[in-house]
């Protein structure tokens, strides 16, 4: 008896009947992709059920770099939580830092000045550009085009130099303070931003020309790893991945924070939600981010670079050394000896990958009673098996890199 399918064997066999299984009964292979595979750009494990080179199913294992951020946050004063947020999406850590600081300000009812808002917008958009540079150039690498990656990465370096001028750090930035910034933009920062505004658009166009109408790149990405808008919403997609599927949801527009309503920019949208659309959406978002930075820099208001929040913002050093009040406040801030008002607050910012939310419950103590991070990667990565089902192994790799799953954010 030949040509018998697996279902038939299960359903229609009589007890005691003897069958000879022959070539039609498939043997599936299980392939361990990861956890330390170089093509997954991070520590992800996927157990793939393969029929030849076609993926039938996948099961993810996550949590390899879980660091218990929510538990840590319950045991720290508020200003010490900022460095924890760095380590979530480390490709755009300033967005995480500032998102957290704005959550605290919302709970305290602190109203920041326009200058602080605009400075924040500039930094957050620079961070978005550096996040998208990584994602898009890595899609190129995974399709076999290393040149663009090496070329465009010099601008990520330039953005990191700006962070360095503002806060002294490059990757895990701990940028800004609750209430504003620790120091104003110095002239080097301004000139470096202007340099990026002048040079980056040209480089971006050159990078785009390498890939966007490249036959090989298009064949590798169009229709690969696609997801419909309905399905994406059901899976809780946000950010560029949702916009690539055609839904115009962006926290910056729907719930403007940090004076985003002052700026003129458009939301690029895709139609198919595939890898190519995600690439194009990110590409255009970088152009829009540059536009926002340009407007913010041009209209940067005069004023103070921080607001007066004595409970959280360290007093200037000359006051600390010469006055008793300054010294007292300095110690109170550093030791975190300040009671926070009771309340619950949810604040979301548009991170590099989508809606980055902070749900903070305060019981009137000195530490958060509970802090929950809505990490966009964690939420949309669950759709990955569905997106790669029926595709080839090499397509699974670029689907993952185009989703921009960041291990630090995934595992918290």
């Amino acid at each position: 008896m030949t040509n018998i399918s697996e279902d038939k064997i299960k359903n229609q066999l009589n007890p005691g009947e003897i069958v000879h299984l022959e070539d039609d009964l498939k043997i599936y292979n299980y392939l361990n992709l990861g956890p330390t595979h170089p093509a997954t750009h991070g520590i992800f494990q996927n157990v793939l059920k393969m029929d030849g080179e076609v993926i039938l199913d996948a099961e993810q294992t996550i949590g390899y770099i879980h660091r218990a951020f929510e538990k840590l946050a319950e045991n720290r004063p508020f200003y010490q939580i900022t460095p924890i947020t760095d380590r979530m999406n480390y490709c755009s850590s300033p967005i995480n830092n500032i998102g957290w600081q704005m959550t605290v300000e919302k709970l305290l009812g602190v109203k920041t000045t326009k200058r602080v808002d605009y400075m924040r917008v500039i930094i957050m958009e620079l961070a978005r550009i550096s996040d998208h540079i990584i994602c898009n150039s890595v899609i190129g690498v995974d399709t076999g085009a290393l040149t663009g990656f090496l070329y465009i990465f010099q601008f990520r370096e330039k953005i990191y130099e700006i962070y360095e001028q503002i806060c002294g750090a490059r990757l895990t930035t701990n940028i800004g303070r609750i209430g504003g910034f620790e120091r104003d933009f110095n002239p080097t920062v301004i000139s470096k931003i202007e340099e990026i505004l002048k040079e980056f658009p040209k480089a971006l166009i050159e990078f785009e020309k390498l890939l966007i109408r490249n036959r090989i790149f298009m064949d590798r990405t169009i229709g690969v790893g696609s997801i419909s808008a309905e399905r994406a919403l059901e899976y809780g997609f946000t950010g560029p991945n949702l916009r690539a599927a055609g839904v115009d949801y962006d926290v910056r527009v729907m719930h403007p924070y940090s004076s985003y309503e002052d700026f003129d920019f458009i939301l690029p949208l895709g139609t198919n939600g595939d890898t190519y659309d995600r690439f194009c959406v990110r590409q255009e978002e970088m152009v829009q981010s540059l536009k926002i930075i340009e407007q913010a820099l041009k209209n940067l208001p005069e004023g103070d670079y921080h607001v007066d929040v004595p409970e959280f913002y360290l007093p200037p050093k000359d006051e600390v050394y010469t006055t008793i009040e300054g010294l007292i406040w300095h110690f109170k801030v550093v030791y975190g000896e300040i009671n926070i008002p009771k309340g619950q607050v949810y604040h979301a910012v548009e991170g590099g990958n989508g809606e980055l939310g902070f749900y903070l419950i305060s019981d009137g103590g000195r530490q958060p009673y509970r802090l929950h991070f809505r990490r966009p990667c964690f939420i949309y990565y669950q759709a990955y098996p569905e997106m790669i089902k029926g595709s080839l192994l090499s397509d699974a790799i670029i689907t993952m890199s185009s989703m921009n799953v960041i291990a630090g954010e995934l595992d918290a």
Partner: protein
Amino acid sequence: MVDNNVLSDTISAQFGDDILSIEESYGMLDFIVNKDIIIDLLKWLKNHETLKFNFLTSLCGVHYPEKEDHELSVVYHLYSMYNNVRIRIHIFLPIAKPEVPTVTHLYPTANWMERETFEFFGVIFTGHPNLKIILNVEDMDYHPLLKQYPLVDNTRTDKDDKYFGR
């Protein structure tokens, strides 16, 4: 346009006594509801012709050890893209019987969020397709975000340091 007043009136008109409290904090409505109606409420909110809460933003647990018989809380953040409005729904569960029906059939995105809540708080989501630990090691038999577990295990001796102590 649906604002918070319309929202609280509509929901309390439909569910009445099962809505235990409504508060507005920082511009977002905060409902505490009877845990038995949570599925009905979410289904109704999702399919309502004007409210259309089609997006589950986040789901997480909270532990309140001092509230007797209401030790665990599950918090749902819902978002209506059509009306651009968010709400927050709390339910409370006793830690002795921390069971609540899953919402994965309404919002598939709840799958991993519920697994995370199960892992950290021990809330059992009945009917969940694959309720197992997600971030920590598989054989972990406690729920680390419960308040009785301190951050640092003071009984450990392998980290003793002559100068800095633990």
